């Protein structure tokens, strides 16, 4: 990767090419795709909260065939590696889908085992280390591409889930998806998203996810991609110090559609200004007086 900055799944699509040069991104990450086309949830799908937003899009997907036919060739125009995010209802379906989208032009798979399956009160594979191990193992067998396991911050002990994913063969972890949340419109007395609950993202969640990256970094030996509330180069540095080898930017793309490009530029300047010759030296370098400072690069 040219740099550690990439978009977060679901907050990026082909349209972004119209406003920033996708060649500058560390990687490209698709919206989670399902095998067959899916409608997604009923609206409203989004509500703003203090320094955050709740989304309950529920994975609207054109299906894996459309992805391979249209999106993969589109992104092939750009030098940046392409990561396809996959979503399925069973471990077997995950594995089958992984095989299906392991086509030329795809550089890695992100296994979205963390989307709060909202029909089941927010549960998802990544709530449980055994389930995580099972699904990642099956995916591991069905593709030779690098696989990233995307974890949920709603789990008790994210680091343990990360460890399970590592043992099952994941090449990297994405920490993390959204926090299960809810808000209520007090005038209508209705939940503010049609699906009642949804996923909280944005700056408000950053301190929780930084903590999870930190905890996970202490347990696992594969690279961690930090994701949650990143809006500036300072946030990127904070995540790297906590243990992230790369980061994903989600909600901030809505706040500032050219934000990723700006952050990439700011990161270069930051490195120069602070005499950092290898940005990976920052990985895990928080001075918590308790662990060695070793950084792992994320490479394809």
């Amino acid at each position, binding site marked *: 990767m040219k740099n550690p900055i990439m978009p977060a799944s*679901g907050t990026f*699509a082909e*349209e972004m090419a119209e*406003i920033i040069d996708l060649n500058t991104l560390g990687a490209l990450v698709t919206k989670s795709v399902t095998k067959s086309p899916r409608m*997604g949830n009923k609206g409203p799908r*989004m509500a703003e909260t203090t320094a955050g937003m709740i*989304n309950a899009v529920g994975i609207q997907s054109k299906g894996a065939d459309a992805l391979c036919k249209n999106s993969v060739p589109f992104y092939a125009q750009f030098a940046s590696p392409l990561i396809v995010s996959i979503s399925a209802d069973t471990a077997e379906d995950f594995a089958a889908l992984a095989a299906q989208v392991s086509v030329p032009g795809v550089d890695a798979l992100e296994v979205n085992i963390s989307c709060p399956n909202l029909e089941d009160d927010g549960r998802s594979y990544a709530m449980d280390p055994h389930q995580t191990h099972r699904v990642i193992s099956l995916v591991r067998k069905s593709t030779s591409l690098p696989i990233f396991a995307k974890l949920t911050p709603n789990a008790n002990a994210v680091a343990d889930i990360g460890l399970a994913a590592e043992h099952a063969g994941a090449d990297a972890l994405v920490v993390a998806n959204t926090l299960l949340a809810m808000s209520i419109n007090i005038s209508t007395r209705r939940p503010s998203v049609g699906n009642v609950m949804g996923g909280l993202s944005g700056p408000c969640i950053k301190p929780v996810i930084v903590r999870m990256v930190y905890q996970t970094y202490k347990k696992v030996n594969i690279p961690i991609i930090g994701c949650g509330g990143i809006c500036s180069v300072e946030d990127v540095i904070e995540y790297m110090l906590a243990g992230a080898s790369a980061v994903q930017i989600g909600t901030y793309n*809505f706040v500032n559609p050219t934000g990723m490009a700006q952050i990439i530029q700011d990161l270069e300047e930051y490195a120069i200004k602070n005499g950092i010759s290898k940005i990976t030296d920052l990985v895990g370098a928080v001075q918590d007086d308790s662990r060695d400072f070793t950084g792992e690069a994320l490479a394809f």
Partner: protein
Amino acid sequence: MQQYHGTVLLNQWVSSRYKHLAVHAPGITTGCTAGQFFHLRCADGFVPLLRRPMSIYRIVPKQDEIHFLYHVKGAGTQLLGEMQQGDRLDMFGPLGHGFTLDPKWKNILILARGVGLATLAPLVQLAGEQGVKVYAVLSARTESDILSATYMRDCGAEVITVTDESGTSGVDDVHPMLEALIEMHEVDALFTCGSKRLTYLLQSLALKYNLPGQVAVEENMGCGMGMCYCCVKQFNHNGTPVNLRVCKDGPVFSLKEVMNL
């Protein structure tokens, strides 16, 4: 679409609830059409976090100006309202698909309510420029909230106003008025924005008179550019419901496809 950092030219109250904002930025009118919108960042910082979609109210290509007419409603529009002449405004757009005028059309009917007037105003201008006659029924709470009546008349529209305060804006009052206009003036197409009730009413008239129609729809937005699927609503594609993005597939949709506003 592009991110512009415009300069506020004016931002003034035009009624007790609405403000008129004009912004200058080189090249900003490029590709702008009636019915499209800009996604505005109402303040630096993260509360409110997201941009606010605002219809283009007026396009002034010669002066590189875009105007908005907005209802000061919640946190975002309140902060927008605090902008001063000379301030910088972060604008992303133009976004979405606007209204289209078939060259064959001679007379069109527009039905607007509240801030829907803002959205339809540039269509009236466009129609005027293309020699299409506009019959406009404008609805609002009070007479003073009917902000664009004069502007629309200047553009050549024939305008009828109805208000809640005068008791003339009920669906039952507007319904016969619309039928009369359609029948009297050989209306070729129907346009609306700003009210669910009125949209359903106009949809029924589009069916009854077999007329094409267009409606500008609103929904909460994340990206504003088609990536996130936050703004999706269901529309009727020949009997099957499809999920379309208000920001990119709209905000202007065919009236007959409207299902759940």
